[in-house]
């Protein structure tokens, strides 16, 4: 059975001048308000050594947990539990459902 979490906005990101910031991270909390899962879509670019990576995922301490060289529009949202990527989805609501299913053992 998927668990039901309370979701709130996490980190935000701007789409550039003239565009309002958008939430690119949703944090799933348990009944005690403890963050236990994040679905995140952080677009790069980020420079790693001499390479430029276009998409990254970070854990709650902003440490990079996954890099992807190309922008992958189909699988942009990552489900991150405890600093580990446990799933991917194209859209945030799909990632939320994926996260709840993953935590429920589904």
């Amino acid at each position, binding site marked *: 059975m998927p668990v039901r979490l*309370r*979701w*709130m906005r996490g980190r935000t990101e701007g789409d550039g001048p003239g565009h309002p910031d*958008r*939430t690119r991270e949703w944090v799933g909390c348990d009944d005690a308000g403890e963050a236990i899962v994040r679905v995140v879509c952080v677009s790069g670019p980020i420079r790693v050594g001499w390479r430029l990576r276009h998409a990254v995922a970070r854990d709650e301490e902003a440490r990079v947990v996954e890099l992807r060289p190309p922008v992958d*529009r189909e699988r942009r949202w990552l489900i991150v539990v405890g600093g580990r990527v446990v799933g991917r989805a194209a*859209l*945030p*609501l799909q990632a939320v459902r994926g996260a709840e299913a993953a935590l429920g053992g589904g």
Partner: protein
Amino acid sequence: MARTPLEKIRNIGITAHIDAGKTTTTERILYYTGKSHKLGEVHDGTTTTDYMDQERERGITITSAAVTAEWKGHRINIIDTPGHIDFNIEVNRSLRVLDGAIFIIEGVAGVQPQSETNWRLADRYNVPRIIYINKLDRTGSDFFRAAATLTEKLGINWVALQIPIGAEDTLKGVVDLVTMKALVWEGDELGAKFHEAEIPDDLKEKAAEYRQKLLDTALAVDDAAMEEYFDKGDVSVETLKRCIKKGTISGEFRPVVCGSSFKNKGVQPLLDAVIDYLPSPVDIEGIKVAPEEGQDEDSDRRVIEVSEDGPFAGLAFKIINDKYGNLTFVRVYRGVLRTGDQVLNTTKGHKERIGRMFQMHADKREEIKEVYAGDIAAFVGLKDTGTGDTLADPADPVVLERMAFPVPVIDISVEPKTKDAIEKMTIGLQKLAGEDPSLRLRTDQETGQTILSGMGELHLEIVIDRLKREYGVDANVGAPQVAYRETITRPHTEVYTHKKQTGGSGQFAEVKIIFEPLERNQGIIFENQVVGGAVPKEYIPAVEKGIRVQADTGVLAGFPTVDFKATLVDGKYHDVDSSALAFEIAAKACFREGMKKAGPVILEPIMDVEVTTPQDHVGDVVGDLNRRRGVIQSQDMAGTSVIVRAHVPLKEMFGYISNLRGMTKGRASFSMQFHHYDPVPRQIADEIMAKSA
């Protein structure tokens, strides 16, 4: 024009591949909005927007027509555009001035070649779109398969707002996924009523699946909506509509609705979607000003916001000449303009006085005294304003972003049947070319013939027909010729000295020019890199003129030379004997000599051809395309037919339709559009050169 608040105006176009049902949909819109009380049909030649004789006789749209309708307190200005690729200029200029579009695809074939071309045009102008999958009453139609072609062929992120109830001849209505209600029509006839009902049991699962897809996609563009969903497990209809509108305008996703205009099902919800999801003039970013000289196309430029406040600014996007004179269609972006006002044509730098103004309803007109930001109106009496020119208040003489026009690919020679009609023919053709930027008129320097260049055989056929009907000139027309081009393949530096001394003052000019090939569609670039006054500044324009004029007659077979850069790097002059004329002559000769040594080649237009054929004729069709020097790109199943796609030289496509009909017993159809220019094979180049010699 009665004032409608800007937020209640929708300026939209209806665009699609030929025969997808644009005009039929427009007719239904006019009927259901109460604008017309009887329905016109394309096959009867009685539609409102196809008002030209040729349109009614042939059952196709040739020119875009503007009409206005009212729906639920909103004014919808609609432009119905042609589907045939030969009249693509009409789609181009309409999309340029519209705030949104209904993009129709056919329920049987899905996305077709012209749909793709129009889609890319709409992308170029950032036009928000609603996709309408039409003709779902047809045998072989399939909403889901047609929608899948949106992903396959356009690569877009689409989201269904409706799914059909029933299919083909049992099409009954649609499930509205926003309200989760069924909309069921009570008949096929004109004006058939529809009612809301519960979703049929057999569709509940499918509707729930597509509703979830809609929520997943639409809510992703709005954080507040996501929170509402997390709080309540669902969102209100208002919230969902807000998200759909936001995503539609930003282009994050493309909403899809469906129906059958011919069977009168789905038109009213389509109108609802227009006012709910397509932007009003104030919902869009505004229009950019044209880049200044030397400024990059992608550079940050000033944006003129749509507002009634501020100095007037509008864009002329269409000219027509009829029995009453010259009508210039203008989209107003800012300010208010009244009859008798004076404006500046900022593109050409002269003033124009506004005579009479009209709101157009296809070929009918209603006189108005003022126009406001957001309006589309026609002005009479402008003396020298062409398609793409900006009209503005001299207080803020902005030049709005211009339009890009397609390159003509077919030439014909034209001459009047009687000698005394030469002047009438020239005037007529000049006026027709003034209306249509994809039509070019020139005189062949060697033969003295009048050459008309257009987008295809049908385009030129219509022009000649209009010349006869509207200007009374019967013309003899030469066989269509491919509009070949010439270009170069390697760099070369040429020095040419023009020296003439035959008594009196002489002529002297020397130029050193580097000729380099450019990428396709770059045209001609001239650059001056002369230092130290080796060629005095006043002679530089003459050098450029010489090259551009001479480039009209290529060195291989006399076709225009394109896609090269000429850099003037050095030269010599004489204090007494040099003149602009001497430098122009030197530049022309330098071009002729230089081009011969820069690897000249002849280019031919290559067409993107799509043939839809029954399976049992695929082998014949493919074999025939191969014999025509075609390169097969793909073969895809579509119901019981196969769609063969190939790149084929235009030269090999003349008269193809009769051949195809014979080969397939009339069961196959095809369409083609210009794709790119390629060098012709050596043997064919030799034939072309021999013919031109």
